[in-house]
């Protein structure tokens, strides 16, 4: 049972700013980590690093025992990122966006359609994403996340843009993911929602681990 993720002295620099500075962390598989901290504390940078979007400036990241940089081709099918960006094409319809991802994953299109129905987007599945509200775009992004059946789910401010009903659904989703054995990393500054969902906690301040 290797650890889902291990960070060894990881730092990430943008020009002169250290977005993350010498962070070390271990999260066993199936656990869930609540990541808190103010804006610019490095939460998003950490999630993007875990999603293998870019490489750390110093240090090493191991995901499921594999190096996140050299092994990223093999790791990416198992990782899903729900970030500020929805990864959607505004000119395509909701269905086309999801079917595209399904094909890239080698999944049947029916699976994408089923998820669209389940997330309440069935009625507007054939409308361009351009016409969708922020809340609906978030739901569509959740469909993309679920479509991957991730072993590692990275959620960046998942409660943003959601109405109370939506927040409840999101909490429900996180529990489902954990029960399905997925490792979850949930970054939010709305601590009250995340507290009950996660087994462990990390507070970031200016890119470094700190006390809450």
């Amino acid at each position, binding site marked *: 049972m290797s650890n889902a993720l291990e960070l060894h002295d990881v730092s990430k620099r943008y020009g002169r700013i250290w977005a993350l500075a010498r962070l070390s962390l271990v999260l066993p598989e199936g656990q869930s980590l609540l990541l808190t901290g103010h804006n610019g504390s490095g939460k998003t940078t950490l999630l993007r690093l875990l*999603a*293998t*979007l*870019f*490489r750390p400036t110093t240090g090493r990241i191991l995901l499921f025992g594999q190096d996140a940089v050299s092994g*990223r*081709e093999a790791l*990416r*099918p198992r*990782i*899903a*990122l729900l*970030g500020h*960006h*929805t*990864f*959607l*094409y*505004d*000119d*395509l319809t909701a269905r*086309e966006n999801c079917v*595209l*991802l399904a*094909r*890239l*994953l*080698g*999944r049947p299109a029916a699976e994408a359609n089923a998820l669209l129905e389940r997330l309440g987007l069935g009625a507007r599945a054939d409308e*361009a994403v351009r016409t969708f509200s922020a809340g609906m775009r978030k739901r569509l992004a959740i469909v*993309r996340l679920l479509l991957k*059946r991730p072993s590692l789910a990275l959620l960046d401010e998942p409660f943003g843009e959601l109405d109370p009903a939506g927040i409840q659904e999101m909490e429900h989703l996180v529990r489902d993911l954990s029960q399905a054995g997925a490792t979850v990393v949930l970054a939010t500054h709305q601590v009250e929602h995340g507290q009950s969902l996660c087994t462990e906690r990390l507070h970031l301040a200016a890119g470094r681990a700190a006390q809450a």
Partner: protein
Amino acid sequence: MRPSAPPGLLSTAWILVRKDLLLEWRSRARANALVFFALASVLLFSFALGPDTTFLRHAAGGTLWLAILLASVLALGESFRVEQENAALDGLRLAPADARALFLAKALANAVLLVLVGAVILPVLFALASVDAVLGLGRLAGVLVLGCLAIAAPGTVYAAIASHARSRDVLLPLLLFPLLIPAVVAAAKATSLVFEGDPMLQSGSWLGLLGAFNLVYWSLGFALFPRVVED
């Protein structure tokens, strides 16, 4: 838990080409604008180069390819602006989709669009410059396709780079035009030979140069594009 078998490189590329062509179809208002822009360039060159039809007939090949070159800068820039909305390109990388498949798909989709632009311009050119495809439409179509492919391959690599840089609208043509000179020279010469006949059988060497240019930059793009998108 993982019954799915992700598609290979070429099938991924095919899925992405269909996506790009669908995107171009959905935003066909942009494609139409591009065609009219190219037509305007042809008219502009014809007026600028003077009413003398014998000269215009001789310059017809150059006019065609200058119009396509100018249109290609807009098409290439646009093709990556679409990918930057909602960081869609990152979404594809994380899907995961192999960056080389991304290159093949984007370059091919851009080439298809340029061929369409060329196909619309040609009849207008036939009228304006009173030229005719002496060596046959087949040869003309061949030159058009080879030339557009030659523009699309390096153009896609440069468009990906420029899309993240400052003042990208200046940077893309500044990088692309000097690079494409051999391709545009060869395409324009080959096209002129189609229009005016090829007594000394030179078009073989021009098409050879165009083919070699394609070979070099499709393989170079295939090898280097991942370094551009993968950080």
